[in-house]
């Protein structure tokens, strides 16, 4: 019990963020038209690559004088997270590019 309260106290600010961010996420997404479900999911997927910051911290402070586990795992983690971020945003942009092009043409036609 004490452990739980200690945890809650230690992370009171973060728990605040989690709860508010949860509501925010629901609110932001709730009324999205189904035409945008795929790009939205893909964009959100890219945002979840925010773990790259953790990777940068891990690799950034890793001991480089030897082949430490931190160094190797850090490289893999940063590489994977970069794929998630870069690939995710580019794929989303590609999908949305199609929506836009077509819209312009449509306006010209009508």
């Amino acid at each position, binding site marked *: 019990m004490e452990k739980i309260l200690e945890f809650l106290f230690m992370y009171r600010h973060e728990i605040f963020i989690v709860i508010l961010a949860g509501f925010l996420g629901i609110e932001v997404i709730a009324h999205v038209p189904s035409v945008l479900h795929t790009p939205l999911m893909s964009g959100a997927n890219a945002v979840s690559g925010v773990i790259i*910051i953790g990777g*940068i911290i891990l690799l950034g402070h890793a001991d480089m004088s030897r082949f430490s586990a931190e160094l190797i795992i850090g490289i893999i983690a940063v590489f994977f997270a970069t794929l998630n971020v870069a690939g995710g945003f580019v*794929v989303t942009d590609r999908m949305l590019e*199609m929506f836009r092009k077509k819209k312009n043409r*449509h306006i010209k036609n009508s």
Partner: protein
Amino acid sequence: MKMIQSGFSISASILDLSYLIAAIFFVIGLKMLSRPESARAGNLWAAAGMGLAMLTTLVLHKDPHGNPIPLQNAMLVLSVIATGTVIGWIMARKIQMTAMPQMVSFYNATGGAASGLVALMEYWNPDNSSILVTLLGISVGNIAFSGSIVAYGKLDGKIRDWTSPVMKYINLFMLVLTVVLTVILMLPGIDGPTGKVLVFVLFFLSLVYGVLFVMPIGGADMPVVISLLNSLTGVAAAMAGFIYNNQAMILGGILVGAAGTILTILMCRAMNRSLLNVIVGAFGAGQTSTQEGITGVMREISLSEAAMILNYSQKVVIIPGYGMAAAQAQYACNELDKLLTEQGVDIRYAIHPVAGRMPGHMNVLLAEAHVPYEKLVEMDQINPDMANVDTAVVIGANDVVNPAALNEPGSPIFGMPIIHAHEAKNIIVIKRGMGKGYAAIENHLFYNDKTRMLFGNAKEVLQKLVGEIKSI
């Protein structure tokens, strides 16, 4: 790794400020992504937020002892990021639009793997005092990773669905085992050598659980799983954010987690099933089919007759399904659309929320073929008007137009909202063969008196149809 709270410094302050800005950019980006006009800019906002947070972390981050990131490490980080960016960029540019669901799954897997690995390393960090979030980061990240890899394999046709009646008990057992192991690892005194072994057990156990969890789910349930895995990756990133007390990571991760959860619920609602039902009960498994045998025959139609029907229709609704995606028929479909529109036919597309293999899959494919998105109508909007439609053209869709969902309580899909294709005056079904849909249920629509079947590859059939209409 709690930072020393009182230690104010200009660089720490700028770093925190940049995380705040990044978090605001994420929120604005996602908000803009939910409207067609601003969606593309929204994606760039989110990307800009990510870039900012990455840059300031690299330059300004200090470990709990106040040491900045050494130049040598910074160069290494930059070169890894550069390599990853180039590879990620090329992959994203080269992939075909029909393979988009796999691609998103793959990127989701890499994000999950990164979270699991970062959390695993931080378990050994003596400055890290937050065991629970570390363990959750490891398990959730790994489940998201291996689950997404299996989803990727399935979407790419490399892995087949694999179900067995005992599967759900095994999965339940695995889940309980993961939870128990997490609790054990949190007990005082387990952080020694035993803990170091057990944390590896947790690491691999969650990898195996991820595989087993996605393995039996397939077919029509794929959009739900992908959306769920997406949300798990967000949660894993947020857990890692707790380890570093990093607000940008926590906010970004939870934002994605919440958004993914909502999307998952929307998908489930579109199939009239609970999330638990999707995860635990593989489709139709163990259910005794109470379907009555179908009386009647499928009526085939020739291309020229189909062309005539379409040409003399005033209102046509096209209902695409995964079959259209599989046959890459979206361009041919747009050809047909343009031709008929020139003849004065009013064409719309009825999009079922779970048509295809990921949420909104059909919208992206049709957008790729330059179909104006104003023509894409959601199920709820089109259904009241279906009775006024002259011809409904079903292209590679099956379960989403099966009337059994409305009037056969014994059917596994009973209660799932469908597009009311059967109410149209004429129905043309373009289908590869006589086979059943993913849910393996007979479709009464195909035996309807108003229905005419056009068998063949959707792309070829549509191309020939275009030729026929031109020659009228």
